[in-house]
């Protein structure tokens, strides 16, 4: 096992220093509750339904980098690969609340679920209304009958994009919730790992993979996938990922999707574009149109090499929010 080389100061301070750097990188647009991982947009209008996202750190730029215009109002960020504690979530919630309730949007992991639930209980005691939506897009994690066992991975980027637009344009929390739930219900993803990422604090890769092996279905923290196998071609890998994704979606000829290919960290854009070529061949074969394509490192797993493919089935309403201009430190689109 080769120790990964990382550009850090004191490893135990990595998350705290990263937060400092992130706030500075926002050049005034994002603040944080001093000493915590609770981030908030500095320009949230009064009377806005707030959108709070969050989760463990180590996946940068998500979650903190998605606080911005037509995106999240705040983020509760934990330590690397560890959900934020209820205190952090409550601080973030209080910082973004504008009297109209808060939507919690996060990925479906035991740690996040428990901590956000505890926070929701505490906030409820303070009279702050919260609604909870959990992203469960990873088709590799469980069969459709066990939706609640599915992890949230990079499809969350698309859900946050839709949610950010809806929570900006609409006033009614129930209506906003309905749209976000639709976005969540319409997105499917699957990942593959080519090499492992490592934790700054332990200096160790989160899993071991042979020099010629890949793991199809790997999760965003190195959770086991559906199959460990020998390295194959880009087209083969893509075929293997698209089949379960499409098999899990009710797509018909003529349907439109938004496509996101997420770099887990160390893969090259070149590789992902080659994957995109194959994805499009498959979608064209099935008569499915791509309305828009996003390719980049948004939901990373430290320096893991690999990627995930996400598709969200669109209708006119979702398309509208996907197309809204949005802007944050980590994700902008016009």
């Amino acid at each position, binding site marked *: 096992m080769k120790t990964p080389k990382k550009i850090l100061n004191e490893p135990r301070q990595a998350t705290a220093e990263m937060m400092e750097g992130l706030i500075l990188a926002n050049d005034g647009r994002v603040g944080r509750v001093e000493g915590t991982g609770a981030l908030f947009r500095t320009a949230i209008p009064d009377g806005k339904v707030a959108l709070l996202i969050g989760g*463990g750190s180590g996946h940068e730029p998500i979650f903190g980098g998605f606080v911005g215009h037509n995106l999240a109002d705040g983020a509760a960020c*934990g*330590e*690397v*690969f*560890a*959900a*934020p*504690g*209820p*205190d*952090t979530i409550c601080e973030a919630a209080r910082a973004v609340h504008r009297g109209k309730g808060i939507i919690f949007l996060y990925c479906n*992991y*035991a*740690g996040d679920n*428990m*901590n956000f*639930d*505890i926070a929701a209980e505490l906030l409820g005691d303070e009279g702050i209304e919260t609604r909870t939506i959990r992203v469960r897009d990873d088709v*590799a*994690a*469980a069969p459709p009958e066990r939706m609640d*066992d599915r*992890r949230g991975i990079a499809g969350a980027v698309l859900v946050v994009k839709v949610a950010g637009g809806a929570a900006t344009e609409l006033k009614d929390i129930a209506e906003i919730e309905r749209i976000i739930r639709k976005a969540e219900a319409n997105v499917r993803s699957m990942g593959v790992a080519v090499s492992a990422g490592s*934790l700054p*604090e*332990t200096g*160790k890769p*989160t*899993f071991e993979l042979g020099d010629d092996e890949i793991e199809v*279905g790997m*999760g965003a*923290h*190195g*959770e*086991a*996938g*559906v199959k460990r196998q020998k390295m194959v071609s880009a087209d083969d890998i893509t075929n293997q990922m698209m089949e379960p994704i499409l098999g899990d979606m009710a797509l018909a000829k003529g349907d439109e999707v938004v496509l996101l290919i997420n770099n887990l960290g160390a893969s090259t854009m070149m590789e992902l574009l080659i994957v995109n070529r194959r994805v499009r061949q498959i979608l064209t074969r099935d008569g499915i149109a791509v309305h828009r394509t996003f390719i980049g490192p948004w939901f990373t797993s430290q320096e893991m090499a690999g990627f995930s493919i996400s598709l969200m089935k669109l209708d006119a309403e979702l398309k509208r929010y996907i197309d809204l201009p949005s802007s944050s430190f980590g994700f902008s689109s016009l």
Partner: protein
Amino acid sequence: MTGDDVKAMMLAVAQAIIDNVDVLSEADRATGDGDHGVGMRRGFEAAQDAIMALQSPTPEQVMKAAGTAIMAKGGGASGAIFGTLFRAGSKVLEGKDRLDAAGFAQFLAVASEAVQKRGGVITGQKTMVDALAPAAVASADGSSLAESMSRAAQAAEAGVEATRHMLATTGKARSLGERSLGHIDPGALSVSIILRTMRDRA
């Protein structure tokens, strides 16, 4: 055990967790994301600070301070779970100036129930509950605090071993399926370290 004894015991418990940071992370590397030790260390370092700050505390105050600190600083699944354990358990000690065998058994029973509720799990799912729940049951048979703790520690240790043969159906290990077999659950190991350290101080 007086409140000060409980304080000393819990400081030792925290130290034991901190000392085992690598063992716990390594166990999590096999089935999860490799951070269980560092998460527990964060929580229990905060617990140490919180407990140290207490002057002549009651047993309840010690346990509650520990749980609150762990929940706030631990983060992840373990922060919520182990925070819940100590916070929920502390409630049964309310108004008591000593921790005795019955109190300890009740503490574990309530803690185990609260954790299962919070986590939405039962025994057999390869979690820390598989160490905690049998420990709670075993501790009820003790005729002294020392015996209760000893039985609890022994049951937890057996529980850790039992997780080796369980399929994970929750948490990050879930997706391993068959591949989770042969590995112990890191959270269960933490429970065992906690109870073993309590026993040694009883």
